């Protein structure tokens, strides 16, 4: 490839866009995270590693980081478990039924993030419908305090991220040649074995992007933990926003953000490395 290749010019707008909206701000943040705190400016003149020293030296931040990464992992796995059967049914649907299912799947995304979370607040309130149902069914004897718990945060995140998991898995399932399933049955595989040996590995090209997408989104989720998680438990995004807009500690906030990003990338890279062989084999 040389610059004389006319096709390369077609990439210029994309490169410009990525440069202005991604490379520049990220470089800017990395730089800021190494600056001393400023009093009148967003950041001071000198360079320092003090913010990183502070984060890495303090068990509190390690704890919050771990909670963020771990909670996102739980959300991702629950999302996978919930989404797989939905994706399976969707992949079998044709015509109007398929359109209807697509609309249902996309429905969590059709509500604004604030409205959706306020909705959860009402649903999960002490005298809200969720408690009413549980009481009515006799599962509980007195209303549960559901609001401002980690469980509710996880539930709400799973709810909104399901489409990101269902759609790629549905796609991968549709790409599986049905005669493979018949072939394995003719070789003696029962339904469980067909699923374990054929369907599950061959849907991995859909599982993988779904999991990455949901994980990254869950790590970065701010509004849901902030509104539904209450003051008792902190996640990295709430902490970062607190530094940026609450105490105006931009360099420290940037350092927190960079730590979170790098950790997320490491998790994703680890997952990718562990599943590389499966991915290589199962992609069409």
């Amino acid at each position: 490839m040389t610059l004389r290749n006319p096709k390369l010019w077609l990439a210029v707008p994309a490169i410009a866009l990525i440069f202005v909206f991604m490379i520049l701000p990220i470089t800017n943040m990395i730089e800021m995270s190494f600056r001393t705190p400023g009093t009148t400016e967003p950041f001071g003149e000198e360079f320092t590693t003090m913010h990183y020293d502070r984060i890495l030296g303090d068990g509190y931040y390690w704890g919050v980081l771990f909670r963020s990464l771990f909670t996102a992992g739980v959300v991702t796995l629950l999302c996978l478990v919930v989404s797989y059967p939905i994706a399976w049914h969707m992949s079998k649907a044709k015509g109007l039924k398929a359109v209807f299912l697509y609309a249902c799947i996309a429905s969590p995304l059709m509500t604004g993030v604030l409205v959706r979370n306020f909705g959860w607040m009402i649903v999960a309130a002490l005298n809200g419908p969720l408690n009413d149902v549980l009481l009515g069914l006799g599962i509980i004897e007195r209303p549960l305090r559901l609001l401002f718990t980690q469980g509710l945060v996880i539930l709400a995140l799973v709810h909104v991220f399901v489409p990101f998991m269902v759609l790629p898995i549905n796609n991968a399932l549709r790409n599986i040649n049905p005669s493979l399933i018949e072939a394995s049955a003719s070789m003696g595989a029962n339904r469980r074995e067909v699923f374990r040996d054929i369907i599950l590995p061959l849907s991995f090209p859909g599982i993988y992007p779904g999991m990455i997408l949901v994980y990254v989104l869950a790590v970065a989720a701010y509004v849901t933990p902030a509104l539904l998680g209450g003051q008792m438990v902190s996640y990295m995004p709430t902490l970062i926003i607190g530094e940026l807009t609450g105490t105006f500690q931009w360099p420290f906030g940037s350092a927190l953000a960079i730590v979170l990003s790098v950790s997320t990338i490491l998790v994703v890279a680890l997952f990718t490395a562990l599943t590389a062989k499966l991915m290589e084999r199962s992609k069409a």
Partner: protein
Amino acid sequence: MATVEVRDLRKRYQDFLALDGVSLRAETGQLVTLLGPSGCGKSTTLRCLAGFLEPNGGDILVEGESILSTPANRRGFGVVFQNYALFPHMTVAENIGYGLKLQKLPKGEIETRVYDVMKLVRLDGLGDRLPREISGGQQQRVALARALVLKPRLLLLDEPLANLDARLRDEVRWLIRDLQQQSGITAFYVTHDQSEAMAMSDMVAVMKAGRVAQFATPREIYQKPVERYVADFTGEANFLSCDEVAVTGEGRYSIAVAGTTLDLGGVAGITSDTPVELLLRPEALRLTSVDEATFRGTVTKSAFLGAALHCEITLPGGGVLKLSAEPNANVRTGDEVGIAIDHSHAWLMPEVAP
């Protein structure tokens, strides 16, 4: 290894009747071909046998016992698919050994059996490749090996050669037939290629719109078809319509056709009212001098094909006969020629079987 009997099988897709009473029988070790044009129900029949489809009526018996309530994974049949259906995420060896692994056989035994069958179908050394890393002909042999390694009671093959080029097709065709005969496995083989069906089969079932038009040996199908449809589908054929038909004996007739009278054999049960056709395969016809001829006609087309001279001769009544003449025969378009027929190769049959 088993006798298989298909009895009056019916299958309906929504409001479309795909199988309308199919009956077949395969003795132990026989290869039975389902032959017919696309859409006549060959695959549907095979898929009912395999257990992938549940028929709406009829029965399938193996060794005299119905298998309809046995699910596909417990029938113990080997299936070879038109698109091979190899597991793309498994190597060649894993594909072939998958069924053995499901049986929880010891690893060593699996390896030996996979190795042996790979040798049998000449796949040595390809065990570690993925299906997408081998050629179409090799994929086809993996599909075959994968079915054979389980020593199935019955082998089902759905147009296994359709995706191969002509030269490979010939090679794999004989491989399949050899392996099937060596192992003595009963097999059902689906194809729409009449030469494949003729060459490989012990029995051929010619299918027509969800029914079996004729079920017989390849020779009988070719020489004594029960109706025009069967004759048409099983090779080059000339048809002449007959003016008068007289029954002269059991399956013997005397007919008036294109100005002459012929005594010949035909389908039993034809009466003078049955709309009939005279079947003359090209090899039953011979160019001859006008005096000795059964028919006389004008050459309307002649084409040199190398091994033979292809001629089309129009009879005075309007009928057309195609035949292969000796390559150096001196025949030109417009010539008056005579045609002699071999009576034993002439056959009278109804236009449509009753």
